[in-house]
């Protein structure tokens, strides 16, 4: 009788601890990837045209910036494209940025897609995928970015390094006007300069 009562008490305590543990799970790395990442070293030029599956304007050296927001397994954000390693010059003829879609992070790999930025058309359904492996406590993301990342010939790998953490992420980092950059950008990314290019789609 006493033993049974003890067990009941134990179960109650265990249930309470489980409840607290479940609630405390919200304190784990649910925001690990939130921040700004830049490709480094510069994304290698495709070995052959079409490595990024014929994304015009992104076939040469391209510098990519990711602005990510992670919420548990959900990841949203923006991808931006630059032509110089200072991340100041936009690439003419392509969208300055795209919103990420279907972003997921399973604790090891970040998977997302974005609409092909070239040509910069809103109705385009041509998606480009990425599967980036996280390392260094979320400071580094590395993996292929392309139209067919699971193909026989995987697209070139990109390596991203974090330059801004979640705490420093500003509102202007999150601005994305999906318009084509017809001329080199006259300002760089970040809070100090607008992220959007000028011109029409």
């Amino acid at each position, binding site marked *: 009788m006493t033993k049974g009562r003890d067990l009941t008490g134990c179960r109650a305590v265990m249930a309470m601890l489980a409840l607290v543990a479940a609630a405390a799970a919200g304190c784990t790395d649910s925001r690990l990837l939130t921040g700004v990442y830049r490709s480094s070293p510069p994304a290698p030029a495709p070995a052959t045209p079409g490595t990024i599956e014929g994304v015009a304007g992104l076939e040469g050296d391209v510098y990519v910036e990711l602005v990510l927001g992670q919420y*548990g397994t959900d*990841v949203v954000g923006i991808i931006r494209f630059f032509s110089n390693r200072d991340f100041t010059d936009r690439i003419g003829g392509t969208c300055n940025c795209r919103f990420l879609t279907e972003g997921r992070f399973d604790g090891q790999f970040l998977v997302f897609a974005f609409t092909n930025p070239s040509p910069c058309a809103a109705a385009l359904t041509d998606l480009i995928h990425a599967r980036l492996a996280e390392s260094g406590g979320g400071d580094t993301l590395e993996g292929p970015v392309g139209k067919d990342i699971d193909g026989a010939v995987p697209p070139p790998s990109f390596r991203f390094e974090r330059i801004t953490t979640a705490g420093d992420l500003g509102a202007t980092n999150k601005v994305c006007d999906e318009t084509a950059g017809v001329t080199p950008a006259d300002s760089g990314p970040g809070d100090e300069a607008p992220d959007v290019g000028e011109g029409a789609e």
Partner: protein
Amino acid sequence: MSLRRSAIPGSRGLRAMSIAVLLAGWVVPGEAAMPAKGGVPVPVPSIPRRRVAVLPGRDYRIDPSALFIEGEPSSSSDGGAALANAAAAILAREPEVVPVRPADLHQADESADSPELVVRGLLHLGQERYRDIRIPEAIAALEQGIGSARRVFLDVLSPDLVSDLYLYQGLCYLEQGQVALAHVAFKNLLLATPGRRFRKGWFPQATEAAMRTAAEDFIRTTPPESLLGGLERVEAFLKFARATAAVATYLTGAPGETGSVEVRVAEISRQPGGRLVLAARAESRWSGPEAAAETVSRTVSGWLACAVLPSREITEKPYARFFLDTTAAYSVFLRVPTRRIFSNAGFGLGLAWQVREGLDLFGRVNVLNAFEDQFGDLVKQFWTIRAQAGVGYSLRGNWGRVFFHTGIAFDYLSGFESTTDPNCKFWPNDPARCPASNVRRPRYLVGAAVALGVNVTLYGPIYFVFQAGVAAYFVSNEADTPVNFPVSLETGLGYAFF
């Protein structure tokens, strides 16, 4: 067949006899328990009774000139004893009082290792040493005997023995020429046995004179209140007698038919500390034994009318009426618009008013801060101010109380915003990325709450409190009450206002 037939009636008869025996066994004790008519009185069921000590009545109207009498001294008629008898008679009429006479205590202590036997031995030793003119040794034995006698209250239980001790102590001191000490010893003798008389010519003239002087001084200087040598000793005697009150009766004043009747009733105070207090006091002029007994009777009856007897005793402890507690609180909503529950932690402040036994009114306020959920569906942390009020049902004991509270609950959610759309988390203010319908913003919730808790007394009015509760909300600024069914655990300390 015939055998079987013959066996059946026998079996029935045996069964009938068994039943009869069983019935008889059930009935007979009942009859035995009935009161016997005209026989031995049936013992009354024991009820709680208060023990009241009746100290020996003393007649202190000593005539020094009559201290020594011709012929063999006899036990003079003691008017004080009659007063004590009158007091005991009045007390005996009260069913909830047991009058305790010295004789009762004396009889209760007649074992072989009784202190009285030791004292008596010391008296005999002192007498022998006195007769052998070994005075210092006699004094030592007598003083040891007096000390022992006082410790076990033989001056009350066996005054003649103590009187002899003082007598021989006084005689020894006189032999030594210590007249002052002898004087004190003789006064103590009279205090123990004021009615004692001595054969004239038995003692030397000087001794008689000393004893007579002591008697004269006793009348003038010895206050009756010093019957047992002070209140502390009366307290000790009550403890010894397992009594809570004492009645003392005595006659004072000039010898003969004049003087005063005095009655004192002292009892242990029921206040914390339990010191002895004088509960009743009466004095009247001596106008005969009947009138003296009437004075005693009236005084004791008057005290009894107001005395705390077991049936009048307030047995219920005065429980606290207000309970104030401060707690650490933890709460989770079982229904949330987020994909996982999130924690809320804060503090609580509660006040319960015990309106009457088993029923209380309570009010409670909690301030809780929400913590981020696993998926970050809470756009930001928010505060919950929860107020509850209602009635409670409680069981109380010396250890604390258990309560069940029911009432209304009101939650104000300061800045609650949640969404499962990650776009709304990243671009909360961008309607293009985050439609307003994707964010839930309940502001207030109204419903009913129940809680079960326990208070465990730690020290005095301070108690440990633990309570668990749940609420259900029916009204909200949002139609479907997206946040609901909070379960709360609280633990802390409280203070009971007695």
